[in-house]
């Protein structure tokens, strides 16, 4: 027998679900460097809980909770530089906060106002992309632009386990390999694509191996272990920046909440599975590890959670106090310069407002 090709997928984990190290920490590792990111994870959970509550009281539109994804989302953001570009789907608020997107912007967009995607922080990051995985190719296009312009920037994008079935993810992986792009495809495998479980998406053993077909560096990471997320991303970002090319990282995590606030996961998945997933919650494991290193205490956490609550409330108030845009705003960003016919329609819209 002649073997034409073989592959293996490395699995990366440094902390088990109790926060105990499973292997030697990565080279250059500094545990104290984890604290700011742990704090961001706590902030993200505070925000997420309050955003869901806001939707339940009718003050926010449909919202995609990120409960359980904190280590993956924050870790991806932590690995990026400001000049890099992030192309999210519709759930990666933790990555976006790490990049300077404001919580009030998240609330604004998901509260029905386009101004939420006019990020004050990362001006060149892509907006939320609702059509599954389309953002993956936009990130690959951005990476192609960086390569052609010889800019030392990396484009990072996320899709879910369901999204990894989509043409666009395969196309992004394929073109990133064909052009050797500074590109990182994160596949956030949270177990569920609305009601369809991971095993029903594909016969592939791992989602990471989808990168192998495109010639990419491919890795599977415990997405509930911040240290593993940071190390996986560090490798991918270094490869991208040094011209070695693109990577696919599958982050194994779990969607602890419903798909969105419009979904009820009790219709399709059992309590036992969810209970067992809570045992792998990324927050207690890191808290436990940092506590053991004397880098984090209950008192610190109490104060920080209180701070997070106040900050999120301020953001919520800023969102709730904002006034809707004027009716003409639906015309004003359609073209660089509004064509004459649309000027007429715009005037009609304004006139209609003053009559009502």
């Amino acid at each position, binding site marked *: 027998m002649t073997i034409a090709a073989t592959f293996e997928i490395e699995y990366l984990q440094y902390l088990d679900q109790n926060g105990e190290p499973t292997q030697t920490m990565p080279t250059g590792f500094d545990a104290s460097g984890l604290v700011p990111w742990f704090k961001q994870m706590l902030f993200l959970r505070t925000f997420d809980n309050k955003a869901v509550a806001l939707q339940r009281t009718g003050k926010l539109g449909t919202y995609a909770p990120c409960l359980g994804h904190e280590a993956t989302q924050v870790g991806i953001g932590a690995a990026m530089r400001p000049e890099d570009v992030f192309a999210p789907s519709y759930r990666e608020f933790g990555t976006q906060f790490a990049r300077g997107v404001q919580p009030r912007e998240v609330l604004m967009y998901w509260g029905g106002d386009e101004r939420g995607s006019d990020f004050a922080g990362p001006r060149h990051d*892509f907006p939320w992309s609702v059509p599954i995985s389309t953002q993956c190719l936009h990130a690959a296009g951005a990476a192609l632009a960086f390569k052609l312009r010889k800019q030392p920037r990396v484009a990072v994008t996320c899709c879910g386990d369901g999204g990894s079935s989509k043409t666009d993810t395969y*196309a992004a992986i394929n073109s990133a390999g064909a052009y050797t792009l500074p590109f990182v495809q994160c596949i956030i495998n949270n177990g569920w694509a609305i009601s369809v479980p991971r095993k029903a998406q594909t016969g592939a053993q791992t989602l990471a191996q989808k990168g192998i077909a495109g010639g990419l560096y491919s890795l599977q990471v415990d997405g509930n272990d911040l240290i593993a997320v940071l190390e996986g991303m560090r490798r991918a970002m270094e490869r991208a920046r040094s011209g070695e090319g693109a990577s696919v990282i599958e982050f194994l995590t779990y969607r602890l909440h419903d798909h969105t606030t419009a979904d009820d996961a009790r219709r399709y998945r059992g309590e036992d599975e969810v209970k067992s997933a809570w045992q792998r919650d990324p927050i207690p494991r890191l808290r436990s590890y940092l506590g053991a290193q004397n880098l984090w205490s209950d008192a610190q956490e109490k104060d920080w959670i209180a701070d997070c609550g106040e900050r999120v409330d301020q953001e919520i108030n800023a969102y709730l106090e904002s006034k809707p845009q004027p009716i003409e705003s639906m015309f004003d960003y359609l073209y660089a310069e509004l064509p004459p016919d649309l000027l007429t329609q715009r005037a009609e819209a304004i006139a209609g407002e003053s009559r009502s």
Partner: protein
Amino acid sequence: MNKQTAAPATSGEPVAASAITLIEAITQALAWEMHNDDSVVVLGEDVGVNGGVFRATAGLQQRFGPERVLDTPLDETTIAGLTVGMAAMGMKPVAEAQFDGFMYPMVDHIVCHAVRFRTRTRGRLTCPMVLRVPWGGGIRAPEHHSEANEAIFTNVPGLRVVMPSSPARAYGLLLAAIRDPDPVIYFEPKRIYRQYKELVPDDGEALPLDVCYVLRDGSDVTLVTWGAQVKESLEAAEVLAKDGISAEVIDVATLKPYDFDTIAESVAKTGRCVIVHEAPRTAGFGAEIAARLAEESIYDLLAPIQRVTGYDTHIPLFRLEMKYLPSVDKIVAAAKRTLAAS
């Protein structure tokens, strides 16, 4: 040596007009803009070494290098998605869809993203891209190579849909499309790619978008058309003239957003209108023009509006395709019906 594979003569400096075909005008416009704007890149299937299956990009990779003229993997979704991403980062990609019938996988990226980035981000990100699409029937091609699908796109907000009908307009409108800060679908009527030559100065002068071009003045009937049917409509006007009927011929040129005023002014003068397009009739772009005339110009009309279009069928394979497409005879007959009615 096939002279079409030679690098185009464009130096970036204005040169005197030479007689060129519509497709040579496209190559000339691409070369001009690539020479003068580093952010312009060309990408698509076979556009590089091969110079495009129709040779629209012939010589461009030799002249500007593989980093400005990129062969893509064979996937239309890839072309569209990469183009949107590059444009959002400030480049001006000019992508080629090899044939009209292959562009459907691109629709997701055009409709969901390219035309929405400016709106979605309140102007923070934009999408200054051009998608060039060889368009329409009449070249005896296989199935999926002959589609007149422009009306799918004229209902899409934020998009520009442009279709030249002569070498000079192909040159000027393509330059305008590339320079436009919003996404443009640039449909190229492939049947007239090499139909005739005309003098086109290589001077980098763009023609205005969003306006109709009145190609022939007339007083009895207005023929409104675009793309490959412009030539038939002009020929029909000649035939009508021999019968003492004076036809005005309007090339709509930009279908989205379109210049209704020029059409309305013409109809106010002639009182009669024939709309000619090769796409199927129902909900074709002619329906929009007819509806608007009914709304705003009905008291100017002396006769019912006539449409000369493809049937509401698939364009047949090529043994029958010329029987599907509008012809000079059909246009003349429709014009005469408007005169008989008033």
